[in-house]
């Protein structure tokens, strides 16, 4: 980027032709305000009991990559195929697309992402050497097992019944077909490296570093319940997954959130760091943050990709590149990998067009430090 040193006029062409580009010119020194990408939280995400990144997941669907969308979901939610069917979808109530025409069918899109082929490969922590048992395979227990498995523990789920899933097995087949549930359980076990044993007698808990017990998995005062508690004696105190009053099927997301939270508590009890860190989410985007005029009206669609393309990605950069399109100095650019927008502050003159033109309010102009 350095300007060429000219020591003799004979180094220059005879014609008055340039010999280099202008990139040495640090026009960034002209800047008074600096563009900063600052994602706000989409209202759908803010409303989600699991805080799952819906706009990002939907963006992947719009790009035609449901597997990538599924991976994003499964970092937060072990059973998106279940929530995609049963959840009461508070996300959709907050969708800002309604200001324009119809809200996005977020739950359908979640379901669609969950139907991606194969299982995503999520980062699994190094083996901790800890043995953890989870008694009961309701969504809370499965979520706890899933996140503890991702944390590198050896986790076994012991389900006294014949089918894993706890209260989910009670859901109407029309809402959640048993084979879908089975597939979801199988997938979460595969992703997190968790063993699930049904009709399992809890007869080896003595060697466990930690036991989690979902009391609702056992009939109160039943022989199994007594047996579990008896076996635990002498070992560490079992961590009880409380489900006061239980969950309705539609509240499955809350059950999963409880399991996820309990996994963190279990980590603490094991002397390990928390496995699931709730990301720091910025303020929630409002309709005022968006340039609604930018978005063309579009009919709701049954096709996931088309429907996903309608998402406004409120407050969240979805690499639409309007900033790149609107920079008079070619300073906003999609990076080589295509994953982020890089702002060239060596040259950025701080005009702010990128921020003004960002249809989602995800770029702000800040005072220079």
């Amino acid at each position, binding site marked *: 980027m350095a*300007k*060429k040193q*000219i020591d003799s006029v004979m180094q*220059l062409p005879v014609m*008055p*032709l*340039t*010999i*280099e*580009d*202008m*990139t*040495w*010119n*640090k*026009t960034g020194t*002209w*800047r008074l305000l600096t563009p900063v990408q600052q994602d706000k939280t989409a209202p759908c995400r803010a409303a989600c009991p699991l805080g799952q990144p819906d706009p990002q997941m939907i963006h992947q669907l719009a790009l035609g990559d449901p597997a990538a969308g599924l991976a994003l979901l499964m970092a937060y939610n072990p059973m998106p195929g279940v929530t995609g069917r049963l959840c009461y979808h508070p996300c959709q109530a907050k969708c800002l697309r309604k200001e324009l025409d119809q809200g996005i069918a977020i739950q359908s899109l979640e379901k669609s992402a969950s139907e991606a082929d194969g299982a995503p490969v999520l980062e699994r922590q190094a083996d901790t050497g800890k043995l953890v048992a989870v008694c009961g395979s309701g969504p809370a227990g499965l979520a706890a097992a899933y996140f503890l498995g991702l944390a590198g523990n050896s986790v076994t789920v012991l389900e006294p019944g014949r089918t894993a899933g706890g209260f989910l097995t009670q859901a109407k087949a029309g809402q959640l077909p048993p084979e879908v549930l089975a597939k979801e359980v199988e997938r979460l076990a595969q992703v997190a490296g968790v063993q699930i044993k049904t009709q399992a007698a809890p007869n080896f808990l003595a060697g466990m570093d930690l036991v989690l017990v979902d009391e609702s998995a056992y009939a109160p005062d039943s022989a199994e319940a007594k047996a579990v508690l008896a076996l635990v004696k002498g070992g560490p105190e079992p961590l009880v997954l409380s489900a006061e009053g239980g969950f309705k099927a539609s509240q499955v997301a809350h059950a999963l959130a409880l399991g996820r939270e309990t996994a963190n508590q279990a980590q603490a009890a094991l002397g390990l760091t928390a496995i699931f860190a709730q990301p720091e989410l910025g303020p929630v985007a409002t309709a005022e943050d968006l340039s609604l005029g930018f978005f063309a009206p579009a009919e709701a669609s049954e096709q996931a990709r088309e429907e996903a393309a309608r998402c406004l990605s409120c407050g969240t950069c979805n690499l639409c*590149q*309007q900033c*790149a*399109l*609107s*920079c*008079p*100095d*070619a*300073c906003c*650019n*999609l990076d080589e990998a*295509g994953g982020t927008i890089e702002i*060239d502050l*060596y*040259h950025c*003159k*701080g*005009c*702010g*067009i990128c*921020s*003004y*033109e960002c249809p989602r309010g995800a770029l702000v*102009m800040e005072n220079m430090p």
Partner: protein
Amino acid sequence: MNNKILKQELLAPGHMGCPGCGASLVMRYVLEVLGPKTMVVMPAGCWPTFVGLYPSTCLRVPVMSVPFATTAMAAAGVRASLDRQGKGETNVLAWAGDGGTFDIGLQALSGAAEKNTDIIYVCYDNEAYMNTGIQRSSATPPGCWTTTTPASAPKLEPKKNIVEIMAAHRIPYVATASVGYPRDLMDKVEKAKGLKGTRFLHILASCPTGWRHDTELTMEVARKAVECRAFPLYEVWDGVRWSLTPMAAKTPVTDYLNMQGRFKAMSAPQREVFQNWVDEDWARLSEKCGDNPAA
């Protein structure tokens, strides 16, 4: 695969254009469509002033910076030379501001257009001589402040209708576009690229420095100009078939005027003159376009 929104990026950062320069954006869009096999011929104006500082340049296509009055005919010389060398596929882009097009370059432009010279001529219109310090051109709208039309001596005349002049040459394609609508702009460059002969694009290029608006509003102002029909979008084929580009519903000019310091001192009667000019031109244009579909 290149997933960038502009694949070519023939503009390198580091140029000397003002922050928020609309004309720089227009160049990015035009070159995005025309690509690297393009030779740019530009006269005096903002662009040649900031394109480079010898021996450096911000454009990754060849550029000739030529005297003010000569754009179209210098481009004609380039065209003839390239054709003679068998390089007919190279686009010759004549690139001038409103001063270089409406005023001093009009004779050469007419000379080139009359011969249907095979060039794409882009007038990036910022409605005054911006580079020399915001002096009136014949593209300056009525009532607009410039340093040679101060409040004490306002411009009373409407903006010259360059498109009608160019259409009268019966050239294959004339179109207007606005930097506020890059997709439409690039679509029109694409259409122009697909034709032979003189193709003329009149592109509104907002100028925060001369128009006295916040730098971030460059594209927004250019959209508002279209919405209020101070700068309607349309196309003319062969000088005879006129068609309107679909635009948002017509708005009063006040919104547009109020965004910009250059219209601040306009009196109520001057605003009326402006609105009347817009309405009359719009009526005439609508009549010419009739129901012709945008192609």
